[in-house]
């Protein structure tokens, strides 16, 4: 049924909630039908925790040494590393299961695809709170953003980051460069910062306590975001969970979307998202 040979299924990867590797693999198998579509043809970066989230983990851009030959690889020269990087591309269930078996708890994906790597098909707004800001302020900022996007005739899709923030995505036609999408997101951030005392739009001010930063810098070549339904390396095994906008309201508790809590979820709040390719036509101001 799978090419993957499971190993150490009994290994505890989340000691605080006693989640074993078998449950992590189970999670990715269950979420696969909703994950594989968006993962398709995107290089991914792994965050592996072979000894559990309380022990040291590591980022892995390059494919692991043990990568089997049937795993799709995307070769790309990296300016920063000054060498060729072999990215893993997760196009099928076997690859996803293989990654889970490697204890690659977090899967981060690029905002563009390998066939046109310089043209993003996703625009992301990373709504990222600084400590002392309550979740309700994050929800307020996200709803303001949603309204602004609607003014610009853009439909948006929201998910929890799996930590404190929210990610808001707009799928687009592949006609823009990263410079253009980044600038567009930045403009919207600046607009919101003028409207709200809590929102900040500039990286230089992003660490200011009590603020919500709309991070636009992720809309860059080679940068990644945690993919929907990915686990996070948090003590309670939280998940980056796609939500229906109707559920983004006061009282939202992203920390409640844990591996065990989402296990029974079957709905897909992002239905149709992949086909919803939009144009960034209206100017922000």
């Amino acid at each position, binding site marked *: *049924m*799978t090419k993957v*040979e*499971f190993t150490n*299924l*009994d290994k505890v990867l989340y000691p605080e909630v006693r989640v074993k590797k*078998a449950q992590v*693999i*189970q999670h990715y*198998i*269950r979420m*696969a*039908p909703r994950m*594989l*579509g968006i993962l398709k043809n995107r290089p991914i970066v792994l965050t592996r925790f072979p000894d559990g989230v309380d022990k040291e983990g590591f980022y892995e851009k390059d494919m692991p040494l043990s990568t089997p030959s049937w795993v799709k690889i995307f070769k790309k020269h990296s300016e920063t590393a000054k060498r060729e990087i072999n990215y893993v591309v997760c196009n099928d*269930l076997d690859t996803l*299961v293989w990654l889970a078996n490697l204890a690659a708890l977090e899967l981060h994906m690029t905002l563009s695809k390998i066939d046109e790597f310089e043209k993003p098909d996703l625009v992301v707004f990373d709504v990222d709170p600084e400590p002392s800001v309550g979740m309700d302020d994050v929800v307020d900022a996200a709803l303001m953003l949603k309204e602004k996007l609607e003014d610009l005739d853009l439909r948006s899709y929201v998910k929890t980051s799996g930590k404190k923030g929210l990610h808001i995505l707009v799928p687009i036609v592949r006609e823009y460069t990263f410079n253009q999408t980044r600038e567009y997101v930045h403009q919207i951030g600046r607009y919101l910062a003028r409207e709200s005392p809590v929102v900040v739009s500039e990286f230089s001010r992003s660490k200011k306590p009590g603020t919500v930063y709309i991070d636009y810098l992720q809309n860059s070549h080679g940068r990644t975001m945690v993919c929907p339904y990915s686990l996070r390396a948090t003590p309670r095994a939280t998940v980056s969970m796609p939500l229906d906008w109707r559920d983004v309201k006061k009282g939202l508790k992203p920390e409640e979307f844990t591996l065990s809590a989402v296990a029974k979820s079957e709905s897909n709040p992002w239905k149709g998202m992949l086909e919803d390719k939009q144009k960034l036509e209206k100017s922000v101001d």
Partner: protein
Amino acid sequence: MEEEPMEEANARIPKRPFWSGAVTIGLVNVPVKLYTMTFDKAFSFRFLHKQDGQPLKYQKVCVRDNAVVPWEDTVRGYEVSKNRFIVFQKEELDAARPQSSQKIRIDKFVDYLSIDPIYFERSYVLAPDKSNEAYSLLLTSLQKTHKAGAGRITLRTKEYPVLLHAYKGALVLTTLRYAYEISDPNNFEELKRLMEPEKKELDLAVKIINDLSGEFDITEYEDTYEERIRKLIAKKLKGETIVAEKPVKEEAKELMAALQETLNQLKKQ
């Protein structure tokens, strides 16, 4: 060509008696034949030569020059220390061997249920040999008294303590292990420092045991390996080739179920 598997586990009746002689109780003789009753393994495989499929035979090979040594050139050696042997000639060992008397000598009668099954080794069915009457009398009297005869038998080269008892309308002989063949649990260090359980815990444990109590039925336990081998043999006889599958661990089974479900969903997409 239609072939039947050579062995049918539940219907096996040995063709020949394993031993024949008489049960003797004092001056009474009951002539009997002994048949093997228990089987260690349902299947035994023979080793074949991979290239031509021919059966392989064992040969004794000298460790010094690798020469094949024929049976008549062998003697028995007892290893007293590493590579130092005391040699015995066949005649010397034969002289020490117990006399095979063709008798099952019963010394006394004991309560069958009072004997710990730890001692039980192998069981044999006794069938009447010529005289039905004496056999029937012995069987019926054991059934009536719920007793078993304790005594001894010499089988091949060894003398065994035995129990003679009634089982499903037959006399059954069970050979026993000697006391020296069984280790005494009191010799284990770990068992010398056992703690007294707390009363509350003990009460709970007793309650669990009572709740789970029932009649023992051996047929509730199935040998899944033997069942699988049996199916494989049937397939091979029909000429089907067999694809080796790795055994799936219990914990992986749930994952396999989830995989199946996801694969079904992906097919629909």
